[in-house]
């Protein structure tokens, strides 16, 4: 890919060409006073308007000078071109790399989305089953006759279904055991005059449920709170 030559270079080139072919009398455009746009190469014997060569000069010498200048500048241009090529190639690679990474990222996202949708549905179902479990449990607790009917067996079956799906129960809520705010949630406090019971579990309200990596529903407990006058 060849970059467009700067306007100054074009003018300079046309000037050289005219000089070379027709001699200084017919120069249409003089050399620029400075070789703007062609740094860092500096011309030692650069002709200027004030120092224009005349028709008496040796045309061969002039041609040689111009050729040297031209070669120097072409070499500089070539270096610039190489550098540009390298940068373009780098950008192409970067673009490709970016695309590859985006595609890889999108595939990952699709996988996550797919598993996320599944997990979302599964989580909702599991939460509903846990709610059902809690309701069964509460029913057995508050209705004595439910404790001898089919409810205990149904409750056990539900627990097995949850366990088969990676959800296990946990329970740390033994009376008098220390309250663990990381795994237990206080639903109410029980005032006590016994300071040794302060901040210990008074009663388990509901068991907790967890998977291998997270708690789905915190175990709920009541906790003793020491007060001076009970």
């Amino acid at each position, binding site marked *: 890919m060849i970059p467009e030559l700067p306007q100054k270079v074009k003018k300079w080139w046309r000037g050289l060409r005219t000089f070379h072919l027709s001699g200084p009398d017919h120069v249409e455009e003089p050399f620029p006073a400075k070789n703007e746009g062609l740094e860092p190469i500096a011309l030692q014997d650069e002709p200027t308007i004030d120092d224009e060569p005349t028709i008496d000069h040796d045309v061969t010498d002039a041609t040689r000078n111009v050729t040297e200048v031209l070669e120097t500048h072409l070499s500089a241009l070539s270096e610039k071109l190489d550098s540009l090529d390298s940068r373009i190639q780098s950008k192409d690679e970067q673009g490709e*790399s970016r695309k590859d*990474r985006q595609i*890889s990222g999108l595939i990952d996202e699709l996988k996550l989305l797919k598993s996320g949708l599944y997990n979302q549905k599964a989580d909702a179902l599991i939460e509903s089953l846990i709610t059902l479990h809690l309701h069964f449990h509460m029913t057995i607790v*508050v209705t004595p006759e439910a404790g001898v009917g089919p409810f205990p067996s149904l409750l056990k079956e539900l627990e097995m279904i949850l366990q088969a799906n990676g959800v296990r129960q946990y329970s740390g809520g033994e009376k008098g055991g220390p309250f663990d*705010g*990381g795994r237990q949630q*206080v*639903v109410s406090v029980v005032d006590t005059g016994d300071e040794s019971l302060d901040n210990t579990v008074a009663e388990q309200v509901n068991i907790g449920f967890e998977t291998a*990596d997270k708690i789905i529903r915190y175990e709920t407990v009541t906790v003793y709170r020491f007060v001076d006058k009970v």
Partner: protein
Amino acid sequence: MATNTSETVERYYGIDFGTTYSCIAYIDEYGRAEVVTGENQSFALPSIVLFESADRVIIGQEAKNRAKLQPDRVIERVKRFMGTDWSTTQYGRRWSPEEIAAEILKRLAEWTTNHNRETVRDVVITVPAYFSFEKRNAIQRSGKAAGFNVHALVNEPTAAAISYGKTSDSNLDETVLVYDLGGGTFDTTVININAGDITVICSGGDGSIGGRLWDERLIEYFKDSWQRQHGNEDILEDNVTHQTVAEQAEQFKRSLTSLEANSLFIQHRADRTEVDMTRDNFDHLTADLLTPTILHIEQTMRIAREKGYPIITKILLVGGSSYMTQVKREIENKFGLETLLYQPDQAVAKGAAYYARDIQIRNVLEETGLDPDDPDILKSLPAGITVEDVQAATGNSGRRVVDVASRNFGSVGLIPGSGIDAYAIFYLIYKNSQVPSDIERDFVTTVDNQRSLEFSIVESNIEGPVDPEPISSGGQGDDRFVLPEHATKLGHVYLNLPDATVAGTPVTLRFRLSEDGGRLLITATLPKNGDSMDLEIIV
């Protein structure tokens, strides 16, 4: 290959500091926004602080779990107190809202260190679009108190739009309305997304609307249900029952986003009752709560129309409370527009992370003096950033973010020819005008030999105020005028005048509001001798 593999450069992070939940996000090595997960695999940290003892502060879910043990030591929804005089005294120490918020921010930083093994130092924090300077300033102070360099505050809907802009077609030109219904705040913002550039057109909001209103309505309903079965006892007067029912209400509301109906057991002391509710019942019960949000949409759309954006292509639903199915249904019915439930819990934090990444790129460019095209720049940036990202961040290939002023800004002065106590607010910058802005307005001295001139700088939060806006006169000195409820004094610029200054001598007041709308530089200049005085209000 011109992508960075540097693992040692620390990232800038985006923080969504929410009323009920907060989260923190970053751009990963694949250039994607990721939200940090913390305890219990959760990305949302409950914005709850429990002062368990004089030297132990518990943040998040554990604070929630322990709340009933020490209800007087629990602070919830501290965001609503930001920028106010509110404080709490715990174990003899006075805590300001900024300090409490800093504890939440520090916890997010700990999550990040555990997750990424990286220290969080440089951040962008999101704020509701309608937040005042005082509230923004308070958030900024919280960030500093948490040990962060807060590089910018970005409006929450703008952050959500930035995140959405990453997923939309980069050549698309569309105007979307962001409907952001959080736990305790509500924002609407119209944003144009064009070839990666994001231009905020106008914004509105109301700090009194949020998902908690739906919870409170449910709690009242549960109380009434109890009374229908058990008599007139108010179960909410019992702190323990109140807190339990409050939690159940939040869970119940969430369950109705996926279930058509659900039941709930209320336990009060030894008695129990069952409450059944369908989703339709719930929607009917809370229908009036949604109405103000619909009115805000209408108002924001009207302003957008006046500003040359008559067509809204879709409505993005963000904020955790947007999960309620009534939100989507009502908006679609009312406006006939497509709605998109766009990562309601994460979009804001992710957008902030993209915003933070771009700031990091610009800062590194400034520090190193390197050209945006120079692949060497990547050595000074975190892994995963490409030269393309660098160019985009510098605005060379899109991804510019143009925001709007969140308030009107002006100065109090006297209305010419109306007497010495006819005060008014003279506006220089209007709400929803694009930032950065640089506006001058000429004032004159009122009497001969005036020794000084004081500009009282105010912000106000009304749409299209009249200019000048007359205000009441008061007593003497600082009480010489009374600001209306919608206006707040931000500070004053005091300019000494030379001897023998005649009445009518011009003085120029200049307001410059920064690109992120977070820094207002005020300069009063006496053109006669060039004397000037500055006031910078920094957020």
